[in-house]
């Protein structure tokens, strides 16, 4: 398994040499959503706290880096970290309110949605942040401005982000932090009885998750060159963030990546083959049916099922 992963990473490193620019773009999105999904996975998967407002962190991170770059000329490489910190601060506020007041399950879901919506409406009404028109970034191709003439650089940055998030998740998973998160997700009261300070660890998970997600905001901004409150803080982006890890298997290390490798190309394929004809929307119907199918036939997500299937097969061959 380990060697398969290493080989996979090496293959991904070598891939740009043979990829078309379009394929490169798809991989960039796969990595980027894999990254966001992995960041979400820390609090939504491992800790089982279903945040459905993660777009807010992308928005805070993206707007921070962009404003700092436009207004103060600060390089987004630094702005990215500041954006991450501000996103983490917002994450801490949401987490504090949610966890201190004992909001579980769907109440927590709706708390996070409400916060993201408040951010969206607020930014839409702040002229200094561009209001609904948003911010537009000048394309310069200057690496100091987090811009690259060659699309492959974005590829490696997106890959690096995904790997960083995955390594973070991996490090968390094997440490006390991750073990405690899993215990909290499985049974919070039982975990408390075993000395787990559930509040503290849920807060930490939220902060780490929102920090990483905030970093993603900078990538989003400087890859797509504009920011609008509806796209960055909106519910559709939050949904994009959560469906990949859920489909892949929430709370597993490879689930978010697997989910992204499944859903991004499938969305693309369905758009390619069903989006050209007269039936505008057919591809999204297919996508919706696919999501329903995953829930009905793979209710734990793809990765756990795959892992079991592999284990069974290797068991048989032996």
């Amino acid at each position, binding site marked *: 398994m380990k060697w398969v992963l290493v080989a996979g990473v090496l293959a991904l490193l070598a891939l740009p040499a043979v*990829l078309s620019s379009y394929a490169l773009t798809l991989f960039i999105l796969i990595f980027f959503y894999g990254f966001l999904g992995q960041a979400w996975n820390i609090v939504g998967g491992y800790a089982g706290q279903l945040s459905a407002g993660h777009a807010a962190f992308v928005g805070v991170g993206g707007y921070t880096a962009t404003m700092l770059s436009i207004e103060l000329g600060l390089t987004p490489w630094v702005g990215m970290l500041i954006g991450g910190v501000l996103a983490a601060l917002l994450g801490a506020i949401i987490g504090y309110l949610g966890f201190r007041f004992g909001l579980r399950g769907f109440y927590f879901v709706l708390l996070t949605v409400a916060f993201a919506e408040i951010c969206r409406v607020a930014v839409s009404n702040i002229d200094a942040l561009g209001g*609904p028109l948003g911010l537009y970034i*000048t394309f310069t191709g*200057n690496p100091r401005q987090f811009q690259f003439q060659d*699309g492959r650089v974005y590829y490696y940055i997106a890959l690096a982000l995904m790997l960083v998030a995955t390594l973070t998740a991996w490090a968390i998973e094997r440490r006390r932090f991750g073990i405690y998160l899993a215990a909290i997700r499985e049974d919070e009261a039982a975990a408390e009885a075993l000395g787990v300070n559930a509040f503290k660890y849920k807060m930490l998970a939220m902060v780490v998750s929102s920090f990483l997600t905030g970093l993603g905001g900078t990538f989003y901004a400087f*890859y797509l060159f504009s920011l609008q409150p509806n796209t960055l803080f909106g519910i559709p982006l939050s949904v994009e963030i959560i469906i990949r890890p859920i489909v892949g298997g929430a709370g597993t290390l490879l689930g978010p990546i697997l989910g992204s490798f499944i859903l991004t190309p499938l969305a693309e394929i369905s758009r390619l083959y069903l989006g050209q004809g007269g039936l505008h929307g057919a591809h999204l119907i297919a996508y919706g049916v696919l999501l329903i199918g995953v829930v009905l036939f793979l209710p734990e997500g793809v990765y756990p099922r795959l892992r079991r299937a592999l284990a069974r097969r290797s068991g048989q061959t032996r």
Partner: protein
Amino acid sequence: MTHRLTRRTFLETTAGGAAVLGFPLPLRAQPKTFKIGAIHPVTGALAEPGQACRLGAKMAVDAINAAGGVKGKGGIKLELLLGDTQTKPENGRVEAERVVTRGAQMLLGSFDSGSTNAMVSVAQQRRVPFLIDIAAADPITANVAQSVKAGQQKVQYVYRNFPTGSSFGRKAVQYFIEIFKEANVSPKRVVLMYCNDLFGQNQAHGFQAAHKTANPSWDIVEVIPWPEPPTDLSTEVSKAKAAKPDIIAPITRPASALLLFPEIRKQRIEMMGIVGPGSPGIYESGQIVQLKEDLEYVLTSVPWANFKNPKTATAAEEFRRRSGGKTFDTNSGYSYDAVFVIADILERATALDDPDAIVDAMKKTNYSSGLMQYGGPVAFNELGDNANAIPTMIQILSQKPVAVWPKEAALQKFVFPRPRA
């Protein structure tokens, strides 16, 4: 040159059917068509205008090909590679990359400013000339121009044949002043109401800024933005009424228009009339059927087709037929014209396989056969914008939208102030 050819060959080899991963396919024959990537939001929140744009572009391609293609280039035919942004910026980028990889030599699109700006980076990165048919945010072209000026980019590949947000505002204020003068009235109090989305805010800010500069005899006494799409506008209209307006200047989207105009009538506001700085879609037959008398005498400033051009009526009729009864308007019209502008550029370009040659031709554009109402020929200024792309003041008269201002565009005289019922 050789270098570029190799690059093109490389693109071709990786194009085509292996759409998703782009693994190499057998080399295709030399293209017999000139491919244009036409990317619009045909699903999602902006599906309605996006679908109109797509159809407008398709119609133009059909017309050009039926007339023998790009004659100066051996009658090469145009082919559209269609893309759907789903109203998401990231798909603007993905789709642009996809169509370019599949051989698109120019880009066209994409209605919403976010997706459009995402396409800009592809155009600049991969040196693909990009003609923006619709997207009004000023910075889209200005940013590229600035980046070229600063030497960070060598060539500007992005041009726009559409009024910018600020020019919309300037023109609207100008028309207001002219119409009031022509009607010999002097309204004092204007209430600006707008949908607080990308489009509405852009228009409203342009209008307010132009009003400040022009400093006319009327004031904007109240500004009322609402969240778009709204569920209810009764309080907003009550607020407008409380400001005792002479004129209500609304900026609506099709959805909010359905709420706003009936509400204005129901609350019986005494005023000279409704004169909008921009409300796309209110002239659609569907909207007129819905709103009927609520729309009568409403004036609004929108990019409009030039029906003095005899070809326009034919195109409008074809569009009506192919769209299932919709009006040939801003969206379909500008996308239609954009394809013709591209054809004109291709006629003049020294080579079709050199993006820079296309850009050279683009910069020298002086096209005057457009179906839309322009203030002069299509030509691109130093920012890459067409300063002659202007809106027209139209009015709904006898349940039909009619161009009424500026004078050279007017098909009928406007009715203002509106008659009392």
